[in-house]
């Protein structure tokens, strides 16, 4: 049994993904092509005792060197030499799809055409003589309907048949008119005489690409200097001649001839029963891209997705949060107090839990994006918005990246950064890359949500929507700024297909959603886990000195002995042991578990009554209703607990200030003081570099420094509301700062991979400067208008 490798290729929207999923099912995995960030999907399929490895090439219209996808696809074919290449051809759109097929023929790969979407073609009364098509193209043609898996078996049979051959490439000789043909012959003659070119390629194909001004092939050919000096004049002469006679470039002539060949073939093989009837897609488009209704419907759809994603994921998110709370509780029982417990509870569970808690949100979002993409609506959004986005120096397709990053709220900049791959122009791409982190990703939302709950609770949904618009505004203005300064340059063509509307398959949607969610989880599970541990360390060490710890311990001991000696409590608690025991009753822990006071296996009646008295007082009952001596003792106990909590608070606050993050936060107070942030807020922002979800948990830690059992500090929103350093203005400034400042490091890494380290570093600095400037303006103007006092 020999291993068979096949490549799957085709135009975007030709049903390639459906074919791939139908062939390989769940047995697929995603990697990147070496050195670049284009996704490489590989799957396996068994057929008649053979194992076939299926490589899904990126969807392209052509095989030039203009885009990364096309170079990747071409390099894969040339370097890996798959046993067969299946070109998925959309039968309802034959001409344009065959343009790629013709280029495969030129390259010479062992080609099989899967004539897909035969059902769609039939519904549009398009009849194709696929046998004649195969004869004319000299390629096996298999009609398929990937949705219903029709024809896939025949396709695999054909794969085995083709793979049995010796895998020799047979480049087709196509005529491009006498001028080009003669030029090709001359260049081929030079190549064969001089040699020294890469033998992986066919000489005529190299010559053709050379005349087409293909950058990659030029580089390859120019490696041999004696080749360059001989072929450059030929190209110049051919180009000049064509320019003189036809006012064209060789590239254009080649494309025209390819289409001439295709038109000739399809005229013989395709019959339209009815001429250009309005199809369903056109009717839908009349409404959805209507000049007036279109944008209104688009806003409605985007807002609808936003709402459903949000509301729909509330319940599972709450569930997950409970699960992690429970896990934390369980761990505190099993791991003794100290650094190890803190590592697990504050480092690992908080870090991973904080991230996994958003999985439902992310799944919902990806699901809707997948629907928008598969239905074909995403392209309409780009079409309708192009005029606007172009003004900001972005491309209609930038919308996709912005949407995924949180344009409809609750996205993630990491897939958003990856979505910029659809942009061809490097400047438009980098501009999009750089502004994408300004969008309100899913990790920022809980921070906003908490602050909205604390300070702007009157109109939560309205405030969130406002923040979404605000992030769009900032992102677009920043793009405009970048495109007129560091990224000045021409706009790229907006030649885009509006694919016919299609009903997506549930299977395709689920695979797509799970894949993307899984990528997010993998990232959360590995990188963020590592980072939260590092951050935990940064926020824990070096901590308090032995001397200061001793100082606080002495204070606590003093408070305890004062309480025990206090006449107010009437000797109900006579020594430290009893006090400890009483604490345990109050924190509802079984005394037997602790084992330190075996002679007091069950609480005495007096202690139970005292505890009840404390409860009554804490619940705000009238003191008169409680019997003496318990009333006095309970009051004394509460005073004592508050004093103790106060010492703990001060100790933890000092300890946090002493950590690395704390020192940095304190240091930064000089700068952030002018926008209303104290060192605790700074620490949370430092944590946010690891992941924006950490902003919230760190804010929680930083502001719950006095948090001990029985201490009624309240939830984080309540604490912030009561904190003298916080008010609605600070909260709003903080929201804007979090929206704009440094992207999380995973995004930074993605940016660097999609562009370069320089741009990634630029992104960090640029975002910091933008965030600080805008926050400064907001805070200062807000203070002047008197918003900072309430």
């Amino acid at each position: 049994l020999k291993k068979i490798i096949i490549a799957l290729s085709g135009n975007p929207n030709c049903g390639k993904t459906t074919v791939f999923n139908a062939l390989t099912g769940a047995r697929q995995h995603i990697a990147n092509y070496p050195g670049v960030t284009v996704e490489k999907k590989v799957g396996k399929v068994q057929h008649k005792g053979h194992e076939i490895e299926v490589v899904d090439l990126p969807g392209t219209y052509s095989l030039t060197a203009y885009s990364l996808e096309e170079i990747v696809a071409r390099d894969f074919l040339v370097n890996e030499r798959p046993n067969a290449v299946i070109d998925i051809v959309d039968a309802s759109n034959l001409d344009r799809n065959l343009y790629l097929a013709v280029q495969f023929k030129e390259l010479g790969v062992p080609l099989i055409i899967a004539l897909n979407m035969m059902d769609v073609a039939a519904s549009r009364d398009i009849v194709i003589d696929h046998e004649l098509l195969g004869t004319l193209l000299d390629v096996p043609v298999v009609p398929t309907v990937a949705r219903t898996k029709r024809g896939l078996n025949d396709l695999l049979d054909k794969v085995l048949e083709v793979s049995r051959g010796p895998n020799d490439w047979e480049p087709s000789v196509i005529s491009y008119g006498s001028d080009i043909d003669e030029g090709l012959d001359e260049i081929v003659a030079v190549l064969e005489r001089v040699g020294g070119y890469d033998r992986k390629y066919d000489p005529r194909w190299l010559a053709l690409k050379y005349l087409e001004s293909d950058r990659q092939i030029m580089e390859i050919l120019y490696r041999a200097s004696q080749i360059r000096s001989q072929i450059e004049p030929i190209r110049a002469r051919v180009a000049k001649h064509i320019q003189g006679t036809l006012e064209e470039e060789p590239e254009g002539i080649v494309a025209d001839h390819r289409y001439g060949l295709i038109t000739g073939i399809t005229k013989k093989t395709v019959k339209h029963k009815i001429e250009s009837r309005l199809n369903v897609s056109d009717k839908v488009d009349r409404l959805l891209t209507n000049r007036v209704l279109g944008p209104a419907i688009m806003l409605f759809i985007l807002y609808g997705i936003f709402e459903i994603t949000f509301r729909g994921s509330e319940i599972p998110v709450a569930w997950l949060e409970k699960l992690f709370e429970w896990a934390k509780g369980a761990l505190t029982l099993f791991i003794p107090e100290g650094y190890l417990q803190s590592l697990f509870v504050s480092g690992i569970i908080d870090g991973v839990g904080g991230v996994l808690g958003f999985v439902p949100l992310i799944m919902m979002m990806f699901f809707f994006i997948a629907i928008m993409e598969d239905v074909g609506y995403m392209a309409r959004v780009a079409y309708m918005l192009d005029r606007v986005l172009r003004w900001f120096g972005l491309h209609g397709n930038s919308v996709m990246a912005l949407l995924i990053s949180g344009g409809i709220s609750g996205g993630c900049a990491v897939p958003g950064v990856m979505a910029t791959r659809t942009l061809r122009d490097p400047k438009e791409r980098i501009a999009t890359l750089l502004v994408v982190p300004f969008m309100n990703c899913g990790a920022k939302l809980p921070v906003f949500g908490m602050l909205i709950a604390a300070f702007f609770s009157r109109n939560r949904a309205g405030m969130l929507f406002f923040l979404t618009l605000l992030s769009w505004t900032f992102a677009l203005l920043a793009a405009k700024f970048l495109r007129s300064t560091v990224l000045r340059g021409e706009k790229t063509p907006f030649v885009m297909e509006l694919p016919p509307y299609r009903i997506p398959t549930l299977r395709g949607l689920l695979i797509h959603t799970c894949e993307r969610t899984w990528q997010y989880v993998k990232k959360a599970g590995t990188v963020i886990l590592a980072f939260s541990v590092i951050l935990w360390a940064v926020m824990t060490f070096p901590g308090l000195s032995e001397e200061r710890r001793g100082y606080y311990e002495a204070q606590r001991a003093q408070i305890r002995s004062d309480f025990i000696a206090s006449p107010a409590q009437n000797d109900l608690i006579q020594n430290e042991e009893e006090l400890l025991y009483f604490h345990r009753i109050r924190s509802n822990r079984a005394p037997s578990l602790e084992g330190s006071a075996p002679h007091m296996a069950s609480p005495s009646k007096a202690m139970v009554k005292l505890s009840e008295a404390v409860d009554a007082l804490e619940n705000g009952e009238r003191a008169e209703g409680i019997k003496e001596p318990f009333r006095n003792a309970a009051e004394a106990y509460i005073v004592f607990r508050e004093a103790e909590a106060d010492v703990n608070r001060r100790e933890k606050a000092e300890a946090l200030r002493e950590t690395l993050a704390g020192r940095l936060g304190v240091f930064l107070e000089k700068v952030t003081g002018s926008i209303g942030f104290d060192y605790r807020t700074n620490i949370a922002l430092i944590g946010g570099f690891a992941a924006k979800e950490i902003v919230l948990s760190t804010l929680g830690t930083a502001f719950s420094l006095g948090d001990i059992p029985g201490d009624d500090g309240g939830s984080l929103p309540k604490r912030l509301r009561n904190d003298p350093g916080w008010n609605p203005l600070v909260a709003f400034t903080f929201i804007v700062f979090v929206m704009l400042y440094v992207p999380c490091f995973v995004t930074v890494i993605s940016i660097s991979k999609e562009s370069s380290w320089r741009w990634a570093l630029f992104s960090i600095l640029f975002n910091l400067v933008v965030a600080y400037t805008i926050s400064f303006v907001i805070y200062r103007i807000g203070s002047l208008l008197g918003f900072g006092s309430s």
Partner: protein
Amino acid sequence: MRKMAKNQKGIIKRVSAKGEMGRRIREMGLVPNTPVKVKGRAPLKDPVAIWVRDFTLTLRNNEADEILVEIEEPGEETV
């Protein structure tokens, strides 16, 4: 092509776009002797959506400028 009205049909006579734009326009099948029909325009009158070789393609007006079309049929409405 920019001057074409909605639902107007014509045949491409010449594509003057060069470089990447020329390639992008041609690879989508906009080559001489190809029939096209204007399907509509985006809300802000730009880009334009055309019907060519059994699919819908969008182009910006400045890209449409590079395509010379011989009008075959008048449109139903003027833009």
